[in-house]
């Protein structure tokens, strides 16, 4: 005991901080490694089994392998698995920034109505055939979903810029958006034909089966575009967790920070939701996992959110592949997510008392 104390006093606070920071960087690397492993597991498991060596062969030299296996890996499993990771990563980054700039641990694209708005956009295309003129038919649903998701974040963003509109009112407004769009979707379901109703229900469940290489490229580009800008703002975002007044007094332009962050959030969440449908809770939970692992220094917190988002989606996606059945991933994330959500709520309640 005395030895421990002596040790603690011998190391200065700065030295202790450096050690802890180093440990957290290691943890971040472990998370990245876990993501790669889970991606490999995700690709090798499926209705027809495949060993890791065979997978590597298919990836390395597709020409030398049987055509069937190459098609399974390149056209089905790889896009599916990568889509899971990218969607998880994009929603997690959006959620992490949202929780910081709105100073609310329950903020996420799902809880603030972005997903609901996207579902309404998709419903318009599916049920009424309404969409943006000139968009190719196979992209009509995604384009509509994107437009509505973007519009919902734009609305949140305009309110955030409005002077005197507090963060709490903003979150309440987001929740109002969820209910409003859910009601509108229900209305469309009521008037929909049998066929389109089925299609709409399937869309809102969220599915990775809609993955394609083009969508992957777009999402990857959006992520690569947003992440460096987020990281560049790390210190300002970290200071913002100590309160808006304080951050402003340290010379941070909080209004500008919030607006730029909401722009990134809108791009990431709108794209993710429009490609795979409603995927709940990942954007909410991943940042909390990251926070538990590496704390709230945003230099580590943001990448950790991205990685844990990708990791959770990848592991959920592999579990959704039950023998013979493909359960829509949106259902699985919600089922896994709700207990987590409740745990967060209870934790915050205790903190408030």
């Amino acid at each position: 005991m005395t030895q421990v104390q002596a040790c603690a006093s011998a190391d200065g606070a700065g030295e202790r901080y450096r050690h802890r920071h180093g440990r957290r960087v290691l943890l971040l690397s472990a998370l990245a490694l876990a993501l790669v492993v889970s991606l490999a597991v995700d690709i090798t498991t499926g209705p027809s089994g495949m060993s890791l060596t065979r997978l590597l062969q298919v990836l390395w030299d597709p020409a030398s392998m049987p055509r069937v296996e190459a098609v399974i890996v390149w056209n089905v499993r790889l896009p599916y698995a990568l889509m899971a990771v990218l969607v998880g990563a994009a929603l997690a980054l959006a959620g992490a920034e949202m929780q910081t700039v709105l100073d609310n641990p329950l903020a996420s694209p799902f809880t603030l109505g972005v997903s609901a708005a996207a579902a309404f956009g998709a419903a318009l295309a599916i049920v009424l055939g309404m969409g943006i003129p000139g968009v190719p038919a196979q992209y009509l649903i995604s384009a509509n979903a994107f437009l509505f998701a973007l519009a919902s974040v734009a609305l949140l963003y305009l309110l955030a810029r409005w002077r005197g509109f507090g963060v709490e009112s903003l979150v309440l407004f987001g929740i109002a958006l969820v209910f409003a769009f859910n009601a509108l979707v229900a209305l469309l379901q009521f008037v929909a034909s049998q066929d389109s109703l089925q299609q709409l229900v399937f869309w809102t469940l969220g599915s990775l089966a809609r993955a394609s290489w083009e969508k992957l490229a777009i999402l990857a580009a959006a992520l690569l575009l947003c992440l460096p800008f987020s990281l560049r703002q790390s210190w300002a975002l970290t200071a913002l967790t100590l309160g808006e007044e304080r951050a402003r007094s340290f010379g941070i332009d909080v209004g500008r920070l919030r607006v730029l962050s909401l722009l990134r959030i809108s791009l990431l969440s709108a794209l993710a939701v429009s490609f795979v449908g409603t995927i709940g809770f990942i954007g909410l939970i991943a940042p909390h996992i990251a926070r538990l692992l590496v704390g709230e220094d945003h230099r580590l917190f943001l990448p950790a959110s991205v990685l844990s988002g990708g990791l959770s989606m990848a592991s959920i996606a592999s579990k959704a592949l039950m023998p013979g059945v493909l359960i829509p991933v949106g259902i699985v994330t919600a089922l896994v997510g709700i207990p987590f959500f409740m745990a967060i709520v209870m934790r915050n309640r205790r903190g408030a008392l």
Partner: protein
Amino acid sequence: MTGLSTQALSMHYGSRSVLQDIHLPALLPGTITALIGPNAAGKSTLLRGIAGLHKAHGQIWLEGVDLNRLPQVERAQQVVYLPQSLPERTRLCAFEAVLSAAMAGHRGAGFAPGRPSPTVLKGVEKILADLDLTALADRPIDALSGGQRQLVGLAQALVRQPRVLLLDEPTSALDLYHQCQVVEAITQATRERNLITLVVVHDINLALGFSDQVVVLHNGQLAAAGPPQVVINQALLKNVYGVSGRLEQVHGRPLVMVDARLPFSPALG
């Protein structure tokens, strides 16, 4: 012009005027000024105006420079304002909180978030040691007591090496022990770093005890300014606070004794 002073400073919230034509006398480096007055007199607003967090019309002079003409980033290097509210929801530990204050506004090189230099880390370490916080450096902020959080806030302000320190009720909601600790820390920092310190204080006796100068705000106007024992008197207690009381010497130290609340008069607001 030395020190910090204001000229014809006025502030509004929307159409409601909060401060009118404030001419603050020069507050000198190395001194503590207590800003007192009843609730809603505009005390916090004045601090926010000087810090540039809310639009203030008029001039705010710091060593001959009008702060209102400085960009906010430069202004924040000279003046730091510590709000009354304490951080509630953060998983940062005390060290990280102070470090983030030191690094705030740091854009990093290219797109990489900047790494704190060894000098910055040493600076954080020193401030924490000065305020007796070394043992708490690794604790999350939300696990600290109110007094400890207040001290961490002070460390955040000091690590930015400002010339002007604006504190909004740093001792409210603290027990006596922590009040003393915070007051001592403020006094020491002001003297050692030659800061111009302006503190909103609710407790008049506290203001008497530790300030070099007192500024009284009442209904958005400057009611009085000067040495504490001159400014705080029977007339001030009556006209500004609406109580009858007197200033007594107890063992050679001034102390405000309140006798009774006076009948409400509309002039008091």
